[in-house]
């Protein structure tokens, strides 16, 4: 078993034009910084990106946007990004907005082999579109489909050489489900340890879901809204 790759460049090997890629993270919290940077340094284009957010103008997925590598974005919230707005209004970028819980569940379902399921979110709104509507327990629901991707890229605090992952605090977020839904799942971690080091009770993502893993470098961990109180 050899899942360990040297760095982000090796990790993203095989990603081609028009690939569909999921990215873990919520806002800028828990995003795979190294892989995003490596992707932005390639000429790969036409990407369909699935992520809760679209980054900010000069960080996270925003960099792929600025370099026009993205054809379509599937997300739940895309504020905080002027270039995104510009490309959307000019028709350069296709966007599909999905309620956050439905997005998380569609990704989990994709990873867990559930092709479709019913949720109440979005009933009677634009999100309904031509989705099948059905009543359960006196409440209307929409049929939503499982979602998978060619590649899923996540970021964890710690990982082992078998691909077992442990996230830190709210950097867990979408990383947990996204790790399960890639045909190839890439994990970058702050600390890579030999297998057998982690407590098997504390694993968030079992290694079966991860095909490539490496220890990232130079994490910036930018903060979108630093809010503080006085001591």
């Amino acid at each position: 078993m050899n899942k360990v790759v040297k760095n982000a460049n090796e990790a993203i090997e095989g990603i081609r034009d028009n690939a569909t890629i999921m990215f873990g993270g919520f806002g800028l919290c828990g995003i795979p910084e190294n892989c995003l940077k490596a992707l932005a340094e390639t000429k790969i284009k036409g990407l369909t990106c699935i992520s809760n957010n679209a980054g900010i103008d000069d960080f996270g997925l925003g960099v792929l946007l600025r370099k026009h590598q993205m054809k379509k974005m599937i997300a739940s919230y895309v504020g905080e990004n002027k270039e995104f707005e510009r490309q959307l209004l000019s028709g350069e970028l296709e966007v599909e907005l999905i309620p956050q819980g439905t997005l998380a569940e569609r990704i989990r379902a994709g990873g867990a082999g559930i092709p479709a399921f019913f949720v109440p979110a979005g009933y009677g709104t634009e999100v309904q579109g031509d989705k099948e509507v059905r009543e359960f327990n006196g409440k209307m629901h929409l049929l939503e489909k499982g979602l998978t991707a060619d590649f899923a890229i996540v970021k964890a605090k710690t990982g082992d050489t078998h691909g077992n992952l442990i996230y830190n605090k709210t950097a867990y977020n979408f990383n947990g489900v996204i790790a399960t839904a890639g045909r190839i799942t890439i994990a970058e971690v702050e600390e890579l340890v030999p297998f057998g080091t982690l407590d098997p009770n504390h694993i968030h993502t079992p290694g079966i879901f991860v095909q490539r893993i490496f220890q990232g470098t130079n994490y910036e961990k930018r903060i979108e809204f630093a809010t503080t109180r006085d001591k």
Partner: protein
Amino acid sequence: MALDKHGIAKRIARELKDGFYVNLGIGIPTLTANYIPEGMEVILQSENGLLGIGPFPTKDEIDPDLINAGKQTITAIPGAAFFDSSNSFGMIRGGHIDLTVLGAFEVSQEGDIASWKIPGKLVKGMGGAMDLVASARNIIVATTHTDKDGKSKLIKKCTLPLTGVKCVKRVITDLAVVDIVPGGFKLVERAPGVSVEEIKDATEGILIIEGDIPEMKI
């Protein structure tokens, strides 16, 4: 006199009960955290994956791996738990949250809410709002009664794209507390010093007024 943001937040706080798990939306709802009564334990959920939001961090405590659904840096209280986004919305969709408070552009007298999109202006996305309003057992909207131009936000039918239908149970504004009941908005309380007439004028939807309307206690 109309309440300010903090006044609204104080009135929202009176909806809390000991042991409640609560999701507070961005804006006025978030302020409610400052007015949880002494001795009452209320646990705040953050959609991105935290039960037990604490106060904002001091400058030294800031942790980029610890943010709320509004992407602000926060802290976690003792007894907190982290989890992934699908489990987070499992809690929400499964009806485990006791109270959800969120802002709105418009609320209709049928309980519809519009809060995520103003066509022609930038679409930022619905985030978790559609999941919250479709799922929570108890949804309160916190908002000013009218917008900046004096136009009522409590209306017969929403004009903006909806976030959810027939889901809002109660609206708490700078002028009043109203419940959504069959037939319209039922006036429950007045802000201190605000007359029933003022509230009626500020409400485009049908306002049901029965008997004496007490002043809010905040």
